[in-house]
Structure formats: C-alpha cells, structure tokens
C-alpha cells in the first residue's frame, strides 16, 4: 500500500486545481435551455417582495387579472416565467449579475468575462460602440406595427432624439435617464447659493456639502464653475464647453477640484445619501434618481422629518442615461440569444414593468405612454375631486410624454416657479421629469476618448498629497520622523552590543 499516500497527494493536488478551475467550467448545458447572461447596475431593478399596501392602484392593461401594479416576484423571475410561457420554441435561464461602476464593467469585459446584455451609461455605450463591441438590435425589435414591441411603441421621443445625437438608436435601448443637480435643505441653504455649481466650493458651507467620488461626476460641475459666466449668459456653446478636455482646461479644473476637496465633507460613493438624510450635510451633488430616493427618505424619517429640495444650477446639468446593449462577444451570432436578449429588454419596457422598476429604485424610466402617465398622476397628482385650500399648478410633462399629454396637477408649493415661468428647483416630480427649460440646458457628457489618461491622472493628482504644495517644514518633519525611527532601530541594536561587551568584560 505504499502507493496510497502518493495517490492521495495527487488527488489532493488535483482537487486543489479543480477547485481553482471551478468557475471556468460552466454548468451542464441543457440544449433546450438557453442561458442569457445579463449584467446590470447594483440595485437597479425590481427585486419583488412588495407589501400588499404598496399596490399601485392604476389600470393595468397588461395584466387583466391584477387590480393594479405590484411587484411580488423579482423582475428577472417574472421575465423567465413570461418568456418560457411564450411561443419562442425554447426556454431561457437568466444569469443575472451586477456591477458597481462603468469602469468596473469595462474592466471585466476586457478581462474576458462574457455577457449577452449589459446596461452601461451613455459614455460607456459610446466607447463600446467605437470599439465595435456592440451588436445591433434587430429591425423587428423597432417595428412599431407589432403591438407586442413594448419598447418601440412606448419609448419616449425625447430619449430616441437624444440617442440619435450620437447614433446610438440601433445599438442601445434606453432604460433609465435623468439629470444631475444639488439636493439641499432649504432651511439651511440660501436659494441664491444653489443656483450655481459654485456651492461645492462655497466656504459658507465649508465641510457641509458632498460630491461624488468619481472623475466624471466631479469634472462636470467643475467645468460648470469654470465656465459659469459664459454658460449663464448663454454666449458659449454648452456642449463644447462641458466636453472640453484640453490641457489648459484640465489644469484649471485641477485647481478648482483641489479647492473643492478642501471644502467638501466627503467624496462619496454611496454614503452621501445617508449623510443628507441624517442632516450631516446640507447639500450634495446627486443624480436625479438618488435625489428622489433621498427626498422620500428624509420626509419619511420618523425622528426628524425634513423637506429637501432638488436644484438644477443655472449653468448646466448633465443629462445622463443608462441603456441596454448587446455584446457581440456574448451573443456570438447566436440568433436565439439575440431573441432572448431583445425579449428581456422588451419585457422591462412593458409599461407596468417600467413602473415597477421606477417605483422600486426611484429613477426615471425611458418609457413613456399612457400607463406611465397614469402612474405619475397617481403618485404626484392632486385629487381633483377633493376640495382643498392648496394652490395648484399644472405641471407640463409634454416634453417627455409627447404633444398633448395632460399636465399633472400638483401642489404649487412643491415647485419654485420663476417670474418667466421657468422652474429650476422643486421636489420629486420636478426631479424625475425635468421641465423643458432644464432639458434645454442639459448636456450629454461624451466619453473622454484619448484624453482619458490625462483626466484620470488629473483626478489622481487632486486626491494625492502633492509634496510641492506642501509646507517644506512639514515635509522635513516627516522625513525627520522616518530618520529618527531608523536611528532608534540602530540604537537598539547598539544597546545589545554594549550589553554583550560589558558581560564579556565581567567574565
């Protein structure tokens, strides 16, 4: 039995290897079941499990049996059930994963991870398009004559027009969109100060504002500050000014960002929401969807309910969107995969599902149509039959829902209406569906292209301690401490030698 130990060892080694290789070997494949690999942002889809009282009580033409819209199961499970119950001729299994940032997704794709359908942001879609990594949607998907093509029939013109600007309509299907702005506490912040991005470096609110911890969301308001005068007067071309990445602009942005760094409470990735709700900060840079979430939570806070507002600074706002794109690498010419991927997008675009996602995550869906409009009215509109003292305002949403869409009747106190009728600050409805005067000054931020590494280096330089900026005395004292440490170690060594010698002497 001498061979056994060796055998065992080999087995152990083989086991270790197999363990390491485990993720590489895919699960057994069922020829009738197609695996659709979908990757989406974290917390960016309805996960179901709603309470009964969360039922959205509007007409649901897509489910005759239901008396409204409610998310009982997760959206992905509902899709699987819906697809497998249809007459596609094959079954599908969704492998759903999430990513944290666009860069994270891009890195994964470059490392060889394969996905069929992903949901990156505008600039990443542009970059992937340029790198020829995207698979076009089929013409059937956009066929408006098919009533079952929920995306084609319900997507807002506003979104398709924006997609047209960069030629993305065939490659991407819009999912969520929004603006960027400042969430603020009107009791603690002067309205005049939130009219400009300069609030981020306004010393009046030193260490009481937050900004996002990523280069794109920091660069944009910085350029807003830099070009403030031109943007407000309307002299300059906003698209050009805010997509400017020449050396001079980057250098100027670096200086402003350093000032911002000294002034803000934090560069946050996610903590800004909680800090705003708990009142640790009085204003923060936010994406509109998260702004809605913050406002909802802050007023629902039992201990300290606060009414927060959302302001879009006068200079500009970053219009962003996330869209579903199919990857050539993943689909790999497989027609069934493309059908399943398109069906997934189509299912998410079915207005009742779009509403479920919107309700669950707080963002604004790219889907328009009557059902979504009903949902808005249900969610924000004042009941016309009830007699109240409230002064009302007819909020126009036709820029998103198309000509002829009925305005939403809301409480006038939830909006700040300027003398010229423009609305620049408001509560949830304003945040989710910005009026035309906002979308007019919105700018889509393109990808940085070959200037990416310069911008990234600038961002790193902002966050690093620059020896040159620093008081030489402090630098030297640091060096002195290090040296003192080294000397102390030497002394210690020396100590033992003294000790040793003395002992020797005694002997």
């Amino acid at each position, binding site marked *: *039995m001498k061979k*056994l*130990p*060796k055998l*065992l*060892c080999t087995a*152990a*080694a083989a086991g*270790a*290897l197999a363990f*390491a290789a485990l993720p590489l070997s895919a699960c057994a494949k069922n020829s009738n079941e197609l695996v659709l690999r979908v990757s989406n942002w974290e917390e960016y889809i309805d996960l179901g499990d709603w309470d009964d009282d969360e039922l959205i009580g509007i007409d649901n033409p897509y489910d005759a049996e239901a008396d409204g819209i409610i998310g009982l199961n997760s959206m992905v499970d509902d899709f699987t059930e819906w697809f497998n119950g249809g007459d596609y001729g094959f079954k599908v299994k969704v492998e759903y994963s999430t990513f944290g*940032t666009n*860069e*994270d997704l*891009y*890195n994964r794709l*470059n490392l060889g991870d394969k996905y069929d359908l992903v949901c990156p942001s505008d600039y990443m879609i542009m970059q992937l398009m340029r790198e020829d990594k995207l698979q076009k949607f089929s013409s059937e998907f956009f066929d408006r004559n098919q009533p079952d093509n929920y995306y084609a029939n319900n997507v807002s013109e506003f979104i398709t027009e924006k997609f047209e600007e960069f030629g993305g309509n065939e490659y991407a299907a819009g999912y969520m969109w929004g603006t960027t702005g400042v969430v603020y506490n009107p009791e603690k912040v002067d309205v005049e100060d939130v009219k400009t991005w300069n609030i981020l470096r306004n010393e009046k609110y030193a*260490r*009481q504002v937050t900004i996002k911890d990523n*280069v794109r969301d920091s660069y944009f308001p910085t350029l807003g500050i830099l070009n403030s005068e031109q943007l407000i007067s309307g002299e300059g071309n906003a698209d050009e000014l805010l997509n400017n990445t020449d050396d001079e602009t980057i250098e100027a942005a670096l200086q402003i960002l350093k000032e911002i*760094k000294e002034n*803000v*409470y*934090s*560069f946050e*990735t996610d*903590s800004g929401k909680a800090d705003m709700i708990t009142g*640790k900060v009085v204003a923060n840079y936010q994406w509109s969807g998260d702004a809605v979430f913050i406002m909802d939570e802050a007023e629902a806070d039992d201990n300290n309910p606060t009414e927060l507002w959302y302001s879009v600074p006068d200079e500009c706002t970053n219009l962003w969107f996330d869209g579903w794109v199919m990857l050539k690498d993943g689909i790999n010419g497989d027609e069934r995969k493309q059908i399943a991927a398109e069906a997934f997008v189509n299912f998410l675009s079915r207005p009742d599902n779009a509403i479920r996602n919107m309700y669950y995550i707080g963002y604004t869906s790219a889907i328009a149509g009557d059902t979504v409009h009903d949902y808005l009215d249900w969610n924000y509109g004042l009941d016309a039959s009830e007699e109240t003292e409230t002064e009302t305002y007819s909020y126009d949403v036709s820029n998103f829902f198309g000509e002829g869409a009925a305005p939403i009747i809301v409480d006038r106190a939830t909006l700040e209406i300027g003398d010229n009728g423009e609305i620049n600050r408001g509560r949830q409805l304003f945040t989710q569906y910005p009026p035309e005067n906002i979308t007019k000054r919105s700018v889509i931020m393109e990808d940085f292209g070959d200037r*990416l*590494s310069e911008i*990234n280096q600038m*961002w*790193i*330089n902002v*966050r*690093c*301690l*620059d*020896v*040159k*900026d*620093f008081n030489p005395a402090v*630098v030297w004292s*640091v*060096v002195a*401490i*290090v040296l003192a*440490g080294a000397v102390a*170690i030497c002394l*210690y*060594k020396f100590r*033992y030698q003294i*000790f*040793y010698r003395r*002992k020797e002497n005694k002997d």
Partner: protein
Amino acid sequence: MKLKLRFSRSQLCLPYAVFLILFVIAPLLVIIYYAFTNGQGKFTFDNFTNFFANSNTIGTLLYSLLLSLTTTVICLIIAYPTAYILARSGFKKQYVLLMLFILPMWINFTLRITALKEVLTVLEGNISLHPFLNSVIGMTYDFLPFMILPLYTSFLKLDKNLLEAASDLGANKFIVFLRVTLPLSVPGIVSGITMVLLPSMTNYVVLDMLYNSTYIMGSLIGSYFSAYDWHNGSMISLVLLIIIFIVTLVTNRFSDKDSDSRRTVL
C-alpha cells in the same frame, strides 16, 4: 489490512505549494510583467521613473508612511502596558480580560468603523474637519488587537525566575523592566510592528469610510487600476512590495539578533 498513511514533510507541503503558486507567485509575475511594460506590451522603465518623478506619488508615499507610523506608535503605546497587565493578572481573570480586547475582532470591520464614525461625530461634530486624526483613530481601533496579541504571548513566555533573579541581585523594579522585561519582549514588539505598520499603509477602506479624501498607497493603486492603467498601478504595488520586503528583512534580522543576545543573557 492495516492502512498506514505516512507523509513525508515535502508531501505535506504540496497543498500549500499549489496554493502558493496559483495565488501568490503567479499573480506576482503578472504584476512584474505589467510593471515593466507599457500599453503596447513593450518593455519599459517609464513606470518606474514615473513613480519617483511625480511629486504626487512621493507625497502619497510620505503621507501613508506618516499615517502608518503614527498608528503604529500609538498602537504600541496603548498595547504595551495593556498586554503587560493582561499577562500579569491572575490566571482566571486573564482570559476574560484578553477576550475583552479580542472581542471587537469578531464584529465585522466595516460595521465597527461605521459605529466609530458615529461616535466621532458625537465627539467632534463635523468629522471631516480632522481627517488625519480620524484616520489614525480608525486604524488604531482596527489594528490594536494585532499589536496586543504578539506582545501578550511574549509576556506570557517570560520566565518569572529571571525577574526574581534580577531583583535578588539588587535591581530595582525599573532596572528589572529595562534590563530583563523590555529586551525579552522585543520579538513581540517587532512582530506587532510588522503586523500594524504594513497593513496600515494600504488599508484605505478606513480612510474612505471616515471621509479622509486624501489618497494613501492603497487607494492610489486602486485608482490606477480602476482607470485601466494597470502598468502604473502594478509599478506602485511593486514599489510598495519592495518597501515591505526591506522592512521585513530589517525586522527579521532584528529579532534574530535578539534571540542570539537572549542566549547570551541566559
């Protein structure tokens, strides 16, 4: 039939060797490859010169060093008497006391730092006004058990007869401490320092969570990697690795010397 399993030493090493090759050596080679190549995959020293020519990376290195040294010193100042008292207390109490110090380690680290953030907010008001101080407190909180444990073990191992002998020979308490206790606890101090100094140079989660927006080495590496710049990121990792290597080399020498000198003391 009697089954006899006999492994030679080298065979027992095999699982670990496999692990080592797969998850330590192989990634290290990848890092070295990226550190000395550019975007086109050609060999270059540019990343290396970039590191030392950039006043920002040097600033970050100094900042990390300052932060980790301060943390280590404070940890040592707190841990040394604590470990001494723990090791000297009565047998039964000892484990309970030790448990009290080790207990925080059982709680998830991010949870602890979040709690610390709230405590600091109560104490300081706006915590973003003292980023460096908060980072030091956070790191100390996080790494203190790593300093206490090795010191505690080295105090436990300390032979009480030696102390008695020293007193018998006329040394007062201070001299006993200086000439016997302190030299004998040096191995504990050294391993405590290595366990605190090196991780605290890169543990940027603490800084992020306590709103210190200045980068340390860990965050710098992370930011290069998330910006697709694997080459500079790898170079910084490599430089850091070399620094760690040198520190370990020095401290190892130091504790070796120490065990030699202990022999002469005995």
